[in-house]
């Protein structure tokens, strides 16, 4: 196919340049649903603040990481309303065995105000992690030294401590579960609120900030995360042993 490395180039060879590994694992052309809306806008703003239009990293960038992953909820469950409270649980998958990347920061960005046609809700998130310390981050408008791509209906909490202490570096995959709780403002209680039409990405997403710890990985271009790399290497080694 024009534009694609040939199948021969993509043979099961662990010495392949990782850009080809990436091409092999790139989403298929059938993937037409790009993330839309605020999460994409957030990451585009983050990108344009950190790189110039040619993709050169800006010298004065404040991102503080070599890699930022926006993770969308893998599942959400709507709980029955309790009074004026409406609750969803959101699960975020964590692929934490990325040995060549150090998690340096984790935040949750969520909508703290939902202004729909007939409803005005104030929202917050709670983690299901015991003894988890979270910290609200100041928005760019309130004098933070680091510019944030945040819009005013959204807010950000730092959950680095929760993830690093309780969930990261566990064997296998772990899941961060959040409770997204919204309360209808007074005067709206009689109307029956439903989450119809709102995807879980419309309400919250997780941001993971990484720095790489291994120069050899820095040199491998476009490797799609150390998890996949490690998986492939393990698989190759297993075959070699056999």
């Amino acid at each position: 196919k024009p534009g694609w490395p040939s199948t021969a180039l993509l043979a099961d060879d662990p010495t392949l340049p990782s850009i080809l590994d990436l091409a092999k694992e790139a989403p298929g052309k059938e993937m037409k649903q790009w993330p839309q809306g605020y999460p994409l806008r957030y990451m585009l703003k983050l990108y344009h603040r950190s790189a110039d239009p040619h993709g050169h990293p800006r010298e004065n960038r404040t991102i503080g990481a070599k890699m930022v992953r926006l993770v969308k909820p893998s599942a959400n469950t709507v709980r029955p309303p309790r009074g004026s409270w409406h609750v969803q649980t959101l699960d975020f998958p964590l692929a934490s065995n990325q040995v060549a990347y150090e998690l340096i920061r984790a935040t949750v960005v969520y909508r703290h105000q939902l202004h729909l046609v007939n409803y005005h809700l104030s929202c917050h998130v709670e983690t299901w992690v015991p003894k988890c310390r979270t910290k609200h981050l100041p928005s760019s408008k309130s004098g933070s030294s680091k510019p944030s791509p945040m819009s005013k209906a959204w807010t950000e909490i730092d959950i680095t401590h929760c993830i690093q202490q309780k969930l990261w570096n566990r064997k296998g995959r772990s899941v961060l579960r959040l409770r997204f709780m919204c309360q209808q403002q007074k005067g709206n209680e009689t109307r029956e609120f439903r989450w119809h039409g709102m995807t879980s990405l419309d309400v919250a997403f997780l941001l993971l900030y990484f720095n790489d710890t291994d120069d050899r990985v820095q040199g491998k271009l476009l490797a799609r995360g150390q998890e996949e790399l490690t998986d492939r290497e393990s698989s190759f080694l297993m075959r070699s042993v056999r």
Partner: protein
Amino acid sequence: QACSIESDASCPSQEHDGSVNNQCSLHPYKVSFHQLGWDHWIIAPRLYTPNYCKGICTRVLPYGLNSPNHAIIQSLVNELVNHSVPQPSCVPYNFLPMSILLIETNGSILYKEYEGMIAQSCTCR
């Protein structure tokens, strides 16, 4: 200093074989991720300027190309001992990183600074 796009003045003058225009040097080159067929998962940037190195590695390797000793000896071997040993190749010497915003297979959005994406200068080795 290696011969680079930014500092043409540092490129050594060509005195051998009269091939001034054919000497190993950096050539600016742009390609779009659409042309590569990767625009369905790379969000930004749209254009990529990898550049490339092209040209002859002459018998006497210019000092400015930062060629290693091995390349200098190989050039001599090609000239004086065995023509089947090839002349050194014109390849990138320095690289610049590039920031890319992409969609991962699972739908996550990734910002990443990738090393070694853009050739900044060339050498013979």
